[in-house]
């Protein structure tokens, strides 16, 4: 028996050193660099059928029940911002991820990474906010973890939450269910969370305060499902904004999505702030907004249900799925010409969630 060296035994890094030898902030920005990191490193290393769903939450069968499972870390700076804080956000974000697979959120975990020197009063405010948000969302925090790192090695406080939800229907709410002819809805105006953080971080002052849109959306999603609305796919519009979410779904479903710029709700102050800073509101993160792909005949009913809830009061139809084709997202501009709506490349805003 020959002893040839086993060539592929050496574990080679799937991201060639020639590209980026170190992690950049842009690798966490929700754009194309982050997608490359996830697909080439994490998906390649951990691949399995459940991970391959690449949904906001993984859906698995367990003793005849369908369960949804997700996790998310929260590193937003500042910890307290207009319209929310890291505590409530750590509940809303994970609850929303569960809701995007059509699950009813049930249990959360919460893990704290605390920096030495963090005022106890600050920590208590965050803990109370987490507790109150969990109560409002009707979920229980049933396990957790606490770590403290040296001063200067953290940034006050980071939180990770994981969540479990139950799926009590037979609908497949996932990209493969998206069909040509589906309409695309959003539940309200876009870009407020990202711009609220940006305004505080950069000391920008606008005439009116921009509050984050951080909010739980599971109740309205469950009502849509219980009302029998034919929902094909849901996706929350966090980092990378609407543009990233739609490109992800176009890619996963193999469809072309056409959006009308004029139909996309963006508040005037958010629009103005974006113009000033050279940002596209469609790339800016939200924390209480989602896109819903529903059968065209159901659009009006879905809108009516959404608008009955505070979190869906600004709901609108923004476009439709045009055809099964090479995946792409197009946008009809204000002057009526059409262009590609690409996902952002790297970082749009610093640490917003």
């Amino acid at each position, binding site marked *: 028996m020959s002893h040839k060296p086993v060539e592929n035994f050496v574990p080679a890094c799937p991201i060639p050193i020639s*590209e*980026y*030898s*170190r*992690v*950049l*902030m*842009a690798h966490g920005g*929700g754009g*194309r*660099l*982050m*997608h*490359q990191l*996830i*697909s080439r490193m994490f*998906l390649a290393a951990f691949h399995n059928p459940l991970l391959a769903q*690449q*949904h*906001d939450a993984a859906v698995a069968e367990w003793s005849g029940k369908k369960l949804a499972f*997700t996790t*998310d870390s929260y590193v937003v700076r500042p910890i307290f911002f207009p319209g929310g804080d890291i505590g409530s956000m750590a509940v809303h974000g994970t609850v929303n*991820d569960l809701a995007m697979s059509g699950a009813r959120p049930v249990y959360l975990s919460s893990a704290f990474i605390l920096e030495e020197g963090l005022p106890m009063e600050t920590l208590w405010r965050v803990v109370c906010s987490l507790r109150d948000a969990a109560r409002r969302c009707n979920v229980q925090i049933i396990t957790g973890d606490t770590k403290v790192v040296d001063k200067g090695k953290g940034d006050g406080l980071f939180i990770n939450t994981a969540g479990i939800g139950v799926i009590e229907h037979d609908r497949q709410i996932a990209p493969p269910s998206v069909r040509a002819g589906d309409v695309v809805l959003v539940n309200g105006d876009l870009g407020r969370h990202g711009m609220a953080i940006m305004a505080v971080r*950069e000391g920008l002052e606008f005439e009116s305060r921009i509050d984050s849109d951080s909010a739980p959306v599971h109740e309205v999603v469950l009502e849509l499902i219980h009302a029998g609305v034919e929902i094909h796919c849901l996706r*929350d519009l*966090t*980092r*990378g904004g609407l543009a*990233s979410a739609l*490109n*992800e779904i*176009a*890619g*996963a479903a193999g469809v072309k999505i056409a959006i009308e710029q004029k139909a996309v709700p963006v508040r*005037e102050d958010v*629009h*103005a702030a974006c*113009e000033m*800073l*050279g940002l596209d509101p469609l790339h800016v993160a939200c924390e209480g907004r989602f896109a819903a792909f529903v059968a065209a005949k159901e659009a009006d009913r879905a809108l009516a249900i959404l608008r009955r809830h505070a979190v869906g009061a600004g709901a609108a139809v923004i476009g439709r799925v045009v055809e099964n084709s*090479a*995946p*792409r997202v197009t946008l009809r*501009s*204000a*002057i*009526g*010409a*059409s*262009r*590609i709506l*690409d*996902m952002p*490349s*790297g970082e749009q805003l610093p640490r917003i969630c």
Partner: protein
Amino acid sequence: MKYLDEYRDADLAQKLAREIHQVTTRPWNIMEVCGGQTHAIVKFGIDELLPKQINLIHGPGCPVCVTPLEIIDQALEIAARPNVIFASFGDMLRVPGSTTDLLSVKAKGGDVRIVYSPLDAVRLAEQNPAREVVFFGVGFETTAPATAMAIYQAAQKGLKNFSMLISHVLVPPSIEALMSSPDCRVQGFLAAGHVCTVMGYEEYPPLAARYHVPIVVTGFEPLDILQGVLMVVRQLESGRAEVENQYARAVRREGNRPAQELIRRIFKVVPRKWRGVGEIPQSGLGLNDGYAAYDAERKFGLAGRRVEEPADCLSGLVLRGQIKPHECPAFGTKCTPEHPLGATMVSSEGACAAYYRYRCQAPEAATKIK
């Protein structure tokens, strides 16, 4: 949004487009000088509304794109030093130098900070007296007054730990350089409206006369650009070569005199190298002798080095309007916003970035992120 939506009206845009169709009888090459205009054209699809005979050529008006590789390398070297806070507009961070970029310097521990105004950098210097604060002073005449004000304030405050790496460039000499080139195809110009808010347009009539080209000072919204194109085409069709002002709501003939005075107080006109174009005489700003202490190049002893551009990058041809971005063989393959060969692929005013973002189909199927 007030003062913007009025200039993005679909019906008025169609009306202007129809007028352009009516007056156009033959092919014309029109250059929009400013990268901000290029982005508006591609983002709103303005060129799709124009007759086939109108060829919009994208000009060199992207200050990030024309900053020479030597200066980017100097920035990278300064930013990597331990006692330096390197302050820059966000656009410069992804611009590739010979071996790396500012984002990577930051990832290795360099203190690189994004600022929105040069005055923020002056404030950083005040707040960090034990550290050297260096601002990357890049831009056209539009940003020159703010850069000049930062130097002026630093001098007033007697700051010793503040300096600037300067690569300021001027628009009229670049138009002259383009027009005097034997292979120039440009027959009319949309001049950069924002530059003219500061400088006015008294510099342009001699250029229009010497090269017999119409020059129309033009704004940045879709209706501005369509109206600017219409004004240039009308001149071309009737054989005129005049300077006209489409952007009258913001630009006066004489410009902003106090801003010009401030620029003259701090800066002198010097020859500058433009990335991809070469050295253009009298085309840039350098610090006046009285402010030489604020010159980072001098302070850090970095002057006088030369480096070669990567051979694969044709951004020079793009900046001179010789080719369109997608005609470069590296476009979208070897050169993407994530892995750029040249600055035109990453600057928010770069023509390659505009084509990639609004025209090119994303080649890689997206991965779900949260």
